[in-house]
């Protein structure tokens, strides 16, 4: 049993060594042909633009801002409508029972 495990360990180590040797004699990867042209084009872009626009954080921030503006507008509109509805209700009630200002001072 012990002999089996020793043998397997040896095979594992030999395999690891073989894999480690697989990159001996590796050649340098060559850069893509148009690298300079693309780098030069990138150099033309303003640094600030490159830094922020295009980053996921930036687009996500814009999205959050839009959602917040929408929520704020919705809440403000709903509040205004509720106040208008309430004041309309009061006016209707007052008209029905002649509680208007005119009624108190008429005659």
């Amino acid at each position: 049993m012990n002999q089996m495990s020793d043998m397997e360990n040896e095979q594992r180590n030999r395999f690891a060594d073989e894999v480690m040797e697989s990159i001996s004699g590796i050649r340098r990867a060559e850069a893509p042909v148009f690298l300079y042209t693309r780098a030069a084009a990138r150099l033309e872009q303003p640094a600030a633009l490159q830094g922020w626009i295009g980053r996921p954080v930036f687009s996500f921030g814009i999205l959050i801002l839009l959602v917040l503006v929408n929520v704020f507008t919705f809440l403000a509109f709903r509040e205004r409508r509720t106040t208008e509805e309430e004041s309309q209700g009061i006016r209707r009630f007052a008209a029905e029972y002649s509680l208007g200002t005119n009624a108190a001072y008429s005659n």
Partner: protein
Amino acid sequence: MNEQDFIDRLRKGDGHAFKEMVQTWQDMVYNTVLSIVQNSAEAEDITQDVFVRVFRSISSFRGESRLSTWLYRVAVTCSLDAERSRKRRTRGWLRMFTGGAGEEEAADGPFYHPGVQYESKEMAALLFRAMRKLPDTQRTAFVLVKTEGLRYEEVAAIMQLSVKAVEGLLHRAKENLRKELASYYKA
């Protein structure tokens, strides 16, 4: 060409000097970046970024090391930063918005370095897979020595460490790789 004159031209914003810099060192930077990020499209993007950064920040280059050493340093830093942000994107909840799932798949797939001999291709892919698990400093030292063929002294200058520290990093990197590779073994 005198390196100091060349640096002066870069400092003056000379476009021809930029072209010369890219053409002289593009393979060196690309190979380093590719061996770290293990993705050709990302490596090209980072390589462009390295040259643009170096050109824009050349005024902060004090000339204490060679320009190629500085290029290596910027290349390694940019590659490791890109790796970190990719890991953050693929692990974090932001992946819903950034499409990180595809990147994760790309990072998990096999990487075939174009400079590896055909018969060693599969074995080398296993080694590159194991390299992803190494800590940043060990991976950097291993890449610089094994895929760029640099001497320990040069690696020490790039990583701003002593030669002894580089030796230690490489020793630990090899030990960790051996352990990881042994676990890939199928009897």
